[in-house]
Each structure stands twice: as C-alpha cells, then as structure tokens.
C-alpha cells in the first residue's frame, strides 16, 4: 500500500466545510468576565499619569490594572518588554492598562474614560535612523536585561538588540576580481500578519492554583513555560488549551495576549476572563511583521560568476525584541541565497525603533532579505549582459560548496536548486522572452527569484508523540502540533499510515492541543511539522511495531524477526496467511480460556534536532538548522505603459520538496504562500506618520489581495530526498512566499526599466519613479 503522493481528505475538512470547527472565541461560559486593553496614542514618551477613577465608577467594571500593578518584564530571547507599559511608552498602540468588566461593551466603554497624560519624546522611525550616533535611546538600560539565550545580547548605549556577523573568504580579493559590481540600498516596510481569526485568549486561575489558558496560539508549550518564568508559577500548574487556530503566519507564535489575560484573571481572584483584540487593535498593538533596511554590494567577473558580496541588514524589530534577534541571525546564515558566494561579509543587526514590535512572519525574514538579494542579482545579471535565469544557474549552490556559516552543502541537506530553475524555465515559458510588447501600449514581462531557507530552532527543540489503540484496531495519533490551517496533523497521519501500511482513515487525531495531556511539541512554526513531529511519529511507530510484533510472536508462535505488519495485521513474512489482527493483540493476547498475556500497546516516540549550534562571534561559523529547502519562482505581469497599472497573470514555484506527501494540500499551501508574496509586493504595508503613529489600522485602509485578483498559479516539484527526514520530505509550508516579491518586482523593473528598491510597488509608485526620472 502506498499512500504517499496521494490526495487524502484532510482530517479537519468536515469540521471546516460545515462550520463545526470551534475556535477559541466559540467557547463561552456563563460566568466569564471580559477584558479590554487601553493602548497608547503616542509612540515614544513618558507616562505622566494614568487616571482610572472615572472608569472605575462605571457600573459593571470589576477592576482596572496598569503597569504600576504588574512590574514584570517579558520576552522570549531578551526580557525587555513590560506586560503593561511602566513609566515609558515605546510604540503607538502599546498596552497601558487592562479593564475587566462584566461585558465586553462595558469594558470597551471604560477604556475611553481612562485619562492618560504623556510627555512626548522624539520617535525613531527606521532602523537606519536608529543606529545614528545621536539617535535617542529607546531602552536606556538594555544591558541590564536578562537574556534567555546566550547568543543575543543588547549593546548598551545603543538601540542594537543583537548583532550577527558572517565572514567568509576575502571580500577585498573578491571585489578586485569583479568586473561588474552592483550596490543597492533597500528599505522594506513593516506589515501585518492578518490571520482571519483575531487574537483572543481566556484565562482562569482555579482554587487549587491551576492556571487554565485557552488561546489562539502556535506555541502552547511556550506559553506554559514563559508564564511560569514570568510569574513564578509552578509549570505543572499551568494548562494551556489550543483548539483550532484560524491562521497564524507566525504572528501567534509570540506569547503576548496570554500574559495580559493571566494578569487580568489574577486581578479578579482567578475568575475566568476573556481578552479579545479588535481587528483595529490587532493592527496597532499585536506583534507584526519585521521591517528591513539593507545595504548590499555584489561583484561578478566577466563570466558572470559572483566573486564577492558585502551586506548589512538592519532588522526593524520595533519597540521590543521578541524573536527578531533570531530573524537577524536567520538572515545572516542564509544571506547568500541558494548561490555560491566564496567571499562574503555580512552584518545582520536587530535594531529597536518606535514601531510596533516584530515577531516571526511566514518566511522568518527570508521573504524580506531575499527581495533585496534577488533584486541586486537581477541588476547584476543585466550588467553582465547575461540572461537572469542563466546567471542564477551559473551561480547556483551545489554539493561541496559552503553556506555563509560554512556548512558543507550536499544534495541531502540542500536539494537541487539548479533543477528547480531548469523546471521553472519550462513552467513559465521563459524562452518566449522576458519582455514582450503585446500591443495597446502594454508590455508583458517576467521576473525571477531563487530562494532557500533553513529553520532556526533552538538546539533543544523537541517533539513527542503517543499512539494509542481503539479496541477495533484503529489508532489515535497524539501529537502537539497546532492545526493552523496547514493540515500538518493530517500529513502526519498519512506518514503513519504509510509506515504501518494501513488505511489513513483508520488513524484518528485530536486537533486540540492540551499541554497536560499531550507530549511537548516545540512550536508550530518554521515549517517543521513534517520533520520535527514527523520524526517523533515514525519513532513512535517503530515502538508500536515492536510491541505489536512482541504480542503477535506469542500468538503466532514465532520470533519477532519473522513478522511484518500491514492492513492492521501482524503476519509472517514467508506465509502472510499466518496473521493476527491489531484488534486481537492491542490490549494483550487473549487465550481461549480467558487468560490474557502481554500488555496494552502504546507507541511512544520523540525527537530532538541534532547538531544545532550557535554561530562563532568572529566569523559566524556554525549550524543553525538541519537542512535547506530550495526553490525557484517567477511572476509574469502585464503593464500598461500609459497608466502604469498592471495585472499579474502568472505566478510559478518549483520547489525541491524531497517527497510530496499530499499533492493537493501541498500545492494549495504553496499557492497560498505565493498569494501572500503578491500581497507584500503590491499593496501590504504599515504606513506611519513621522511620529510613528500607524495610519492604516483597519481593513478599509490596509489593503490585501482579494479573491478575483489572483493570477494563474503554477506549482511543480523536484524531489531530492533529505536522507534524515521522514520519507525524504522537506519543509515547505512557508516557502511559497519567499521569492515572490522579488520575482514580481523584477518583472516590473524589466517592464519599466526602473530599478525599484522597495515594496509594495503600486501604480502610483511606478508613476513617481517615472516622474522623478523625467525631472
């Protein structure tokens, strides 16, 4: 039986198509209280006073909490963020107070009655400004902050939260052997995650001290650990429940609302409190996607072989660091893209500004730095007068080359990027020409991008799995990944069905995660489900198989070596007619006289990624992830040269996925990634006033790609197995987004002759560039 590479009905399908799927907000209880947060209306300043006296008198208000009541610092890498602002405000929308009331409406009403007086300070509106010598300091005592990891340390007296360095080869030598050099600067704006389900969390503290959290989170186990750490609670007393999550895109990996909910419940003697962010508040207050300022210089010789590259990345972490230092690290280790650059220097800094703070976003910064890199490469290819696809093929990384952090590349750990470009060439019909005049003053143009990405888990990221039996021989697969829309658990069930050679429909999964009844799974992030959870599932399957064989060997009176399993039976390899069903041995083996021997079979498995290390401080040597996923992408557009409006006609991805598990789901997740990439390239962005006040904090003004504006999506696969991964499959769920902004803007640049250095590119932006060129 081969069930891989076949389409299966994902396990959440019926729940979702019927509307029976329940999300955090769907669970109401009668005695629940409701909380709303009060947020700052300035981006940088001191709090002179917070007057809650009028709000407290409003009927139905139970309690109002401010930063003075909970002096706790939070953070996943650096503890730099007060749960509620204490004395100082660092971004527009920062939580200042929580109102707890009998209804949501009363809580909301009360927030408007709280009077806050501020003393404004000058705001820092970009990471480039933030590292200027005379820039105001956003965190005065950053060196006193506690770091939870040893490679992230804020630099005192600066706005730098962390810094990573790559030094490989000799860039001076490299640039002197370069005939063509391109230097470019980029500035990319922050944007929103925009999951369909807004952020929401319920918290309750029971009489025995049990803290119950129900939340829309990608990181239930981290919520548990961090709450224990911040509030000095015994970790076992905290139970985190996560039902279905309506999209996260990284935004729900940050532990944020859970902290405020806990504070709220604690303030009302542990009563159950629900804290919801409105969509508008979600925009201004919740962690968002990073911004990025980049300086990049790449040189190539007359044959178009890259000789050297020098890069500086400034990650706009916003007011607090959260996971941004790791994003600056992720950029550093992958800064070359899937290309071999022997002489390489890269500084990747994580910098505080007065924007809302950043957290993981689909692509973990790769969608940002790849834009800068691939735009520069396109320009360099033009300068070398080499077809951009050919240029990328010439420089494609291959086995025996070394990554920026000096990990040796192999087919197993990095797949085959050249093959991806070859396939893409046909898929997007590259040879018809990159720029074609199609009449009516319109141009059809194509643009390209390569991508690669390695995950950045901590060295102890682990996963655990339990497999139990039902008495009819069917299985329950228990695993702690959160169903955020990617059908991750369904694909794990598919892997298990393949391993046990049985019907996928006879494997049941629990979509909810409960940290007390399910073994720890690090976080549902970094596209790691198939690898990190997959390895644990296969490990548990091995354990299950051993036990099944043990029980069966008694029944079949043979050694375990003679046995194999399939179709819910254990059978003798040389004579499959001698067999016994799972159902007859799963709970021990029953003799005709009623005696039972053996034991209930429970499969147990776990996995920790090996050989993950920190980077050497002087040259960045080290290994942060176990493998790369590579791919090649293209976008085709039609531009009207009179009005500068354009239509996106095609978007294509060829990804080396190792092994396709479920073709339809995989394809649609990659299409979803491309759709988000188009959104970033064409419309999505946070717009701020010079004082860092967010202007577009509603869906009327924050633009997203709509259904009906989507191009034709083309997806194809290369399958170079990753030897240490389940069935050779590679991470893929984030990756559809990564190269699309670059490919799209490369197409627009080809069509217009303008070398754009930011996104989004709207028709007005093109008009501006044209106008500036004419003047």
């Amino acid at each position, binding site marked *: 039986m081969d069930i891989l590479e076949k389409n299966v009905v994902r396990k959440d399908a019926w729940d979702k198509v019927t509307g029976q799927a329940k999300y955090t907000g769907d669970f109401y209880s009668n005695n629940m209280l409701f909380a709303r947060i009060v947020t700052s209306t300035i981006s940088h300043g001191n709090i002179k006073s917070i007057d809650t006296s009028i709000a407290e008198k409003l009927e139905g208000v139970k309690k109002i909490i401010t930063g003075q009541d909970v002096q706790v610092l939070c953070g996943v890498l650096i503890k730099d963020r007060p749960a509620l602002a204490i004395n100082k405000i660092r971004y527009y929308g920062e939580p200042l107070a929580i109102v707890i009331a009998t209804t949501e409406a009363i809580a909301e009403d009360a927030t*408007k009655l709280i009077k806050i007086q501020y003393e404004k300070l000058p705001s820092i509106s970009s990471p480039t400004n933030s590292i200027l010598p005379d820039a105001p300091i956003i965190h005065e005592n950053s060196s006193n902050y506690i770091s939870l990891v040893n490679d992230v340390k804020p630099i005192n007296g600066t706005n730098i939260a962390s810094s990573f360095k790559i030094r490989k080869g000799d860039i001076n030598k490299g640039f002197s052997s370069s005939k063509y050099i391109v230097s470019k600067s980029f500035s990319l704006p922050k944007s929103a995650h925009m999951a369909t389900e807004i952020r929401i969390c319920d918290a309750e503290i029971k009489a025995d001290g049990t803290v119950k959290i129900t939340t829309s989170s990608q990181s239930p186990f981290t919520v548990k650990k961090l709450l224990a750490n911040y509030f000095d609670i015994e970790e076992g007393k905290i139970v985190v429940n996560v039902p279905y999550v309506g999209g996260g895109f990284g935004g729900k990996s940050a532990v944020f609302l859970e902290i405020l909910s806990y504070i709220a419940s604690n303030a009302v003697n542990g009563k159950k409190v629900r804290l919801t962010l409105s969509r508008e508040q979600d925009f201004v207050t919740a962690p968002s996607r990073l911004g990025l300022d980049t300086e990049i210089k790449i040189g190539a010789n007359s044959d178009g072989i890259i000789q050297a590259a020098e890069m500086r990345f400034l990650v706009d972490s916003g007011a607090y660091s959260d996971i941004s230092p790791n994003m600056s690290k992720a950029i550093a280790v992958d800064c070359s893209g899937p290309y071999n650059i022997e002489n390489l220097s890269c500084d990747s800094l994580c910098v505080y500004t007065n924007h809302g703070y950043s957290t993981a976003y689909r692509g973990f910064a790769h969608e940002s730095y790849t834009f800068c890199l691939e735009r520069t490469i396109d320009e360099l290819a033009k300068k070398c007068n080499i077809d951009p696809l050919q240029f990328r093929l010439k420089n494609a990384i291959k086995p025996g080359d070394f990554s920026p952090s000096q990990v040796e590349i192999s087919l197993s750990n990095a797949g085959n990027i050249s093959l991806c470009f070859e396939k893409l060439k046909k898929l997007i019909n590259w040879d018809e020409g990159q720029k074609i005049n199609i009449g009516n003053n319109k141009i059809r143009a194509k643009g390209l991008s390569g991508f690669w990405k390695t995950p950045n888990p901590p060295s102890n990221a682990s996963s655990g799995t339990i497999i139990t039996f039902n008495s009819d021989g069917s299985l329950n697969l228990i695993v702690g990944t959160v169903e955020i829309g990617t059908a991750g658990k369904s694909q794990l069930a598919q892997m298990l069905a393949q391993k046990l050679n049985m019907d996928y429909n006879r494997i049941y999964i629990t979509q909810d995660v409960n940290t007390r009844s399910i073994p720890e799974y690090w976080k549902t992030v970094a596209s790691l489900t198939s690898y990190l959870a997959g390895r644990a599932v296969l490990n548990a399957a091995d354990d299950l198989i051993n036990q099944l064989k043990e029980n069966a060997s008694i029944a079949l009176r043979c050694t375990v070596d003679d046995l194999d399993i399939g179709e819910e039976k254990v059978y003798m390899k040389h004579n499959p007619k001698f067999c016994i069903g799972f159902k007859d041995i799963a709970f021990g083996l029953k003799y005709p006289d009623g005696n039972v021997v053996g034991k209930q079979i429970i499969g147990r498995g776990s996995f920790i990624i090996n050989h993950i290390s920190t980077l050497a401080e002087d040259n960045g040597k080290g290994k942060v992830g176990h493998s790369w996923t590579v791919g090649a992408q293209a976008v085709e557009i039609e531009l009207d040269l009179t009005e500068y409006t354009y239509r996106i006609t095609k978007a294509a991805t060829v990804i080396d996925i190792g092994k396709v598990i479920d073709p339809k789901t995989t394809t649609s997740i990659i299409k979803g990634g491309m759709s988000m990439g188009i959104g970033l390239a064409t*419309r999505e962005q946070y717009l701020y006033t010079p004082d860092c006040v967010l202007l577009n904090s509603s869906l*009327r003004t924050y633009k997203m790609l709509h259904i009906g504006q989507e191009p034709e999506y083309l997806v194809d696969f290369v399958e170079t197995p990753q030897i240490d991964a389940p069935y050779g499959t590679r991470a893929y769920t984030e990756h559809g987004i990564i190269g699309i902004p670059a490919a799209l803007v490369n197409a627009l640049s080809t069509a217009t002759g303008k070398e754009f250095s930011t996104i989004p590119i709207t028709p007005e932006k093109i008009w501006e560039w044209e106008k500036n060129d004419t003047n």
Partner: protein
Amino acid sequence: MIPINFDYYLPNTTQEALLAYTNITQNNKTAIYYSGGSEVISMCRTGSIKPDAIIDLKNIPECQELKIAENNLLIGSCVTLTKLKSSKLFPLMGTTVGRIADHTNQTRITVGGNVCGTIIYKESVLPLLLTDATVNTYSIEGNKSVSIHEIFNKRVNLKPSVFITSFLVDTKFCNTKYFHIKKTANEKIDYPLITVCTLNFEGKIRIAFSGLCEFPFRSLDIEETLNDINLSKNTKLDIILSQIPGKILDNLDGSADYRMFVLRNTLDKIIS
C-alpha cells in the same frame, strides 16, 4: 462589536418613523435614520458616533419601491445596491453602484444610505446628478419633492429630522449612451482615486466625478468645455483641469498629483 447600547426602532410607515424621531429627540436624545447599517456599524465601532437610538427605515413600503411609473424610474431610498444593479432598469446607475464595495456589502448598502452617509465618495449620487433626479422626502411638513441639485451640494443638506423616501429619474435618461470609469489605487474593490460618470443627452455630454475632491460633484463648466466643438483635445484637457471645483483629494489611496495624472488619462479616454 458595537460597544454602546442604543434603542432600535423599526417603523412601518413614514409617519411612525417621524413620530419615533420626534419622541426621541424631544427627550434630548440623539437619533439617526438608517437603512443598510454598514456605516453605522463601523462608525459605532470606532466611536465616531454614539446615537441613543437608531431608526431603521427598511420596513417602510415607499422606501423599498423600485419600478417604472409614468415615464419615471422610482428608486426607493432603502433599495440595496444589489437589487438596483440586478434590476437593470438604469444601466449607468447599475454599473456605478455595482462598483461600490464588495458583493456582501452591496447586499446591505442602500442607495439612500450611500447618498446620505458620511462616506465622502457617495458614488450613487453621480447618476442622480447627471439625470437631474427628483428627491422625495418626508418630514414634519409631510411629503415633499425637490430637485437633487437643490438638496445636494457636496453632501446632502437636509435637516436630521428629514429623510429621503425615494428618488425619481426620468426614463428618457435611463437608456442613453453612458460611460463609467472607476480608477482605484490597486484593487478592483476600493474607494475611488476617481470615478467618472458621463451621460450623452441631446447630443451633449454630462459629466460627474467622485474621488477627485472631498465630495462628489457634477460640473456644468466642465460640461461646457467638453461640449465645445471648437476646442482641440489637449486644450479641452488643460481647461478642464483648471475647472475642478475644489482641492484635489490627497490621502492614503493616492496623492493629489497622482490623482491629476489619473484624471488626465481618464479624460483623454473619454474625449477620444
């Protein structure tokens, strides 16, 4: 969530609606007439309005009519954009309202609401301005009929106690040649950078704009320029650009300069 409490009235007649309004306001409370409610929801959410009561007009028969009677097309103020569009009774109006918001909202937004609301674009009013429509209102003075030009200048100028029951459009306008061009920043469904409606009547072009200024307008001066057969295309364009009756809108959707660029391209198309 609408975080405020308010009273909800659902009158069945114009008289009941007015009575409700009078009673509420006499007690020093605020009331607003509405029909679709999409704007009421978003304004209440953001705290821009806090009405004590809202009076829903959609059960009033006069406000729901959509028919041709004695050479007039009668459009009730509570007719939804979807209903108007799918009736195909007035193609220019159908096309125009069919580009306001997305389908879900079009099933809720009404013609009267769009014309009277706080939204600055009010694209529904453009065909009404071009056809010199008649507006039927109800107030303490009973039923009244006035020209759209009398009550609409930049926005509807009616006392809050007065409400529109319907619009009347002479059917002679309903099937003449027209143009509708809507330009947005990037989206199919969005606020306009510019929406232009034109109507050919008795050999002359009539033209109205939304999105160009902070208010929708029809300009007789621009029409005169457009219809002047002695002017070349480029001269016409230059003159028209100087005849815009207000400051060019400059907002997140598009800068004023860019709007002028889009306007010029759009007019170029219309004149050609």
